[in-house]
């Protein structure tokens, strides 16, 4: 029959731990759709996949339609202006340590499902503000999301 343990550790000096780590590193594949999107950023363009069946466009980009479950092969270029749909002033860095405040926004684009989580700035920035993507100088772009330096209130 089931029986919980009769003996338990009752002194802290008998408690032991073993420190370990998982030191793995990855190179994540951006994928067919991610590649198109990121190479677009490198050229100063925001390219999004558009489903040939239902017409939905998506951000973050994907090679298949969430709605139709069909492959998406066509891409359209967005105007670099979007709307701040959510806004957060972060006081922690990626590791959760206290850091200088940074403003993040969830930027949405007309006719697109989803959006981008990115930096945003500008006096009076609030939910509903119109913002424009500020790209890094062409020579400094690397084909990553950070080719957009920030979104600036228009």
């Amino acid at each position: 029959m089931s029986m919980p343990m009769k003996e338990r550790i009752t002194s802290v000096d008998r408690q032991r731990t073993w420190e370990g780590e998982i030191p793995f590193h990855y190179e994540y594949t951006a994928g067919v759709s991610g590649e198109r999107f990121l190479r677009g950023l490198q050229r100063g363009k925001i390219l999004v996949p558009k489903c040939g069946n239902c017409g939905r466009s998506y951000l973050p980009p994907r090679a298949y339609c969430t709605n139709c479950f069909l492959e998406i092969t066509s891409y359209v270029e967005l105007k670099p202006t979007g709307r701040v749909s959510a806004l957060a002033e972060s006081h922690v860095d990626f590791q959760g340590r206290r850091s200088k405040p940074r403003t993040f926004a969830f930027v949405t684009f007309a006719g697109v499902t989803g959006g981008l989580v990115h930096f945003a700035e500008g006096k009076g920035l609030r939910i509903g503000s119109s913002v424009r993507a500020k790209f890094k100088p062409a020579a400094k772009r690397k084909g990553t999301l950070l080719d957009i330096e920030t979104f600036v209130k228009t």
Partner: protein
Amino acid sequence: MVERVEIIGVGFEGFRPSITDLSTRELMYEAASKAYHDAGVDPRKDIGSFISCTEDLWEGWSIADEMVPDQLGGAGRPVCTVPADGIVGLGHAIMHIRSGVADVVAVEAHSKVADVLDKTAVENLALDPVFHRATGANSDVLAGLEMSSFMEETGTKRGELSQVVRSAKRKAMRNGRASYGATLELEEIDSSEPLALPLRRLDRPEFAEAAVVIVLASGSWAKRHRKDGVFIDGLSWRSATPWFEAGGVKTARYMQDSYRSVMKQSGLRDLSQFDVLEVDDSYSFKLVQHLMSMGVSKVGVMGMLKEGTALNPSGGSLGTGHLIEATGSHKVLECVLQVRGTAGGNQAKGVGRAFASSWRGNPTGAGAAIALSVGN
């Protein structure tokens, strides 16, 4: 007719910020031993399938399946791990029973999260590496963004969310399983440490450790063995696209759909038909969002925060502590204890029906719900 599934035993261990005297396996063993004692079953003879809800990165142990069987009494038996919340694990158990895999199933879920020295790193690994991690927006930032949008769309004020926190912490004061009970002034909550404003430190639960084991049986098995179980009237789970990919935060689609499915299975109309609710409050605003997704108005939600109401008598995750994959199992445990009348200091009167829900946390759009009853 679909066979009814019953909960015939529950067991738990821990419910502290840090359990320093037990290993993960021992923690599971303790909870399992108590659950089997409660159910009056011998796991080596009576239980046909064992399920553990576990995620490798939280364990710090690749292919955590390998460390599951022995401490549950499942060595050499059908054992599987479900990398999801405990309520989803219960859903898998129901499938095992109704498909004939087993008559009796044990579902284990645990949190040994104090062992994880880099909790934020584990949370960050859940974020899309190409489109999210690049900017350094961590899980708190995603929560802060969703919170801001939710507050804007629903007109929810900072003070209302502080009331959510205050209510949870107060209720937790009467729950022996809650690690974070407190009597707080609203001003303390309003001005707690900023994480990703509007998100503040007290808007999110601190972590806690525990293991919960729930033993389920088919109605026919329970009848043959004269077990007085708690009936599972409905259970459902959904995985939706995360809000930042799908848009729209006013309603949590995963919760709305899970809830509707549970109500349809249960033949019930709305939440007022339950005597106790244990609703996910993984963030203060999530409690409001989840209740609104289940048809409660915001005015109604605020009214439910008062003392003595049926909402989260345990103190919820904000008061108990976040138990990662055991979060839903804890809520079910509280419901089972409530309908049995053994919930302790926070026992509600005359509980015949109870409802629990869970959300798997950022960045997921994955949630689950369950309806329980006795004697209907």
